[in-house]
């Protein structure tokens, strides 16, 4: 059936259709996950604070994200009079598209990736840096001191944490010998441990800290620091534009969690010794394994947010430059030496 269609419409058109279908699936599933990530965040943090979280809309508040979405959609769109209009309008779009396009290189299970490019990891870094532009521009264009401070903080934070994060993944690249995310997953199968988490635990620690800083989540949520900057860079945004920033933040969480799953937790695979010991584990579809690992990471985001207070700005900077970057460099040297002699 598929072959007949392919013959009929030609190779190129067929591939384009396949890509479009994959994009639609990934986009749809990601949007659903974003909607329910907000719900589960409120639920999890609520229960951690011995509250209930949303309970009113639907059974145990299950329809809350839909209500929130509708509300955001029908809200008045306000642009402050002193704002730089074009930049103000473009900023949330940049933030959103940069993070959403990162989803295109993530392999969710064996063979399912929209763009299987060889510089996947680099592409993700490029896109997440680009997302920070959205935040900085929003802060600058809003003509508000809170937004401006949020934007400034974000730019400084991204500069210092992206380095540590990039360097931490160099160890993974060295071990995998590739920047292609599917290749990285497959490379982990070649080792006895089946996960880079075990040899690269330092890199994993640095990456996790960098992940929180990169997505502007607690305890590094300085750009939006609610208690001091109201909402930081998106103070002046309302309605759909506000929702775009929200979307960008949650998609960013999903992307960063996926990278962690792929680079450290073996993606859609389980360690070989585990599968050999318990053969039924081999029957679990890859997407389920990937998603469970992803959910654990997203839960980690909530868990940390419910536990840790926000870092002070100088603490954030000193942690980034004085601890994480030297640690990442040491990790690279050690990994290279071990790799060279083994």
């Amino acid at each position: 059936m598929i072959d007949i269609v392919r013959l009929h419409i030609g190779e190129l058109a067929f591939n384009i259709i396949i890509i479009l279908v994959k994009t639609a699936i990934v986009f749809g599933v990601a949007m659903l996950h974003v909607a329910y990530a907000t719900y589960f965040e409120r639920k999890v943090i609520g229960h951690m604070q011995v509250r209930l979280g949303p309970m009113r809309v639907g059974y145990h508040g299950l329809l809350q994200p839909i209500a929130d979405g509708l509300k955001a959609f029908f809200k008045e769109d306000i642009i402050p009079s002193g704002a730089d209009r074009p930049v103000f309008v473009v900023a949330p779009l940049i933030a959103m598209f940069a993070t959403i396009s990162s989803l295109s290189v993530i392999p969710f299970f064996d063979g399912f990736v929209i763009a299987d490019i060889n510089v996947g990891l680099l592409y993700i870094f490029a896109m997440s840096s680009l997302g920070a532009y959205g935040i900085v521009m929003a802060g600058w264009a809003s003509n508000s001191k809170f937004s401006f401070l949020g934007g400034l903080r974000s730019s400084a934070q991204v500069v210092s944490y992206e380095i540590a994060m990039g360097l931490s993944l160099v160890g993974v690249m060295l071990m995998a010998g590739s920047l292609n995310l599917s290749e990285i997953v497959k490379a982990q199968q070649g080792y006895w441990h089946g996960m880079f988490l075990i040899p690269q635990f330092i890199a994993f620690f640095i990456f996790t800290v960098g992940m929180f800083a990169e997505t502007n989540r607690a305890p590094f949520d300085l750009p939006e620091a609610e208690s001091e900057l109201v909402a930081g860079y998106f103070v002046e945004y309302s309605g759909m534009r506000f929702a775009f920033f929200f979307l960008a933040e949650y998609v960013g969480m999903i992307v960063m969690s996926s990278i962690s799953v792929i680079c450290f937790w073996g993606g859609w695979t389980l360690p070989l010794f585990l599968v050999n010991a318990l053969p039924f584990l081999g029957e679990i579809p890859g997407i389920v394994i990937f998603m469970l690992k992803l959910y654990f990471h997203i839960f980690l985001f909530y868990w940390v947010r419910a536990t840790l207070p926000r870092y002070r700005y100088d603490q954030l900077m000193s942690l980034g430059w004085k601890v994480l970057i030297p640690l990442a460099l040491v990790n690279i040297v050690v990994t290279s030496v071990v790799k060279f002699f083994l």
Partner: protein
Amino acid sequence: MQIRDLVKRIFLLEIIKGMALTLRRMFTRAVTRQYPEEPRPAMPGFRGLHALAKDDEGNMKCVGCGLCAAVCPSQCIRIFTSEGLRHEKVVERYEVDTLKCLFCALCVEACPYGAIVLTRHYEYSAYSKEDCYMNKERLLENWDKYMAGEVGKEYFERFWRPMSIDFEGSDGQAVFKGVKGQ
């Protein structure tokens, strides 16, 4: 000591402890009450909506002395009286503006006959000011609704003992002469 601190810092012991605490709390029961479905029952003696007490025959206890109105700090009680056929005082109107009331229960304390009470009912929000303005009929109705029977008895016995119980009467005139039997 220093090595211990270093180990603590490297392995993030404090953070792990905190995370363990939040995780444990996640599986405990939430303390939230889902209010309209799980109402919080008011304790006996609660100071809620006002009511005018009735005696066993169903007559209003209030004699219209005006002590409650006099003592009321927010001046939300209005009493209008007139002279009856046998020269007795007749309470024509007894009005409480519940929006002004601060629920101090000084009126209940001041009343020598236990004629005004604050019931346990507190869910009487309304869309208009008029609905929150209680007249004599509504106040008497409140007694039937929320304080009739044992509830009213317990209210006076346990919490708001009216002074008339302690009155030493002489020649048909009530004069306070200290607590009876002491």
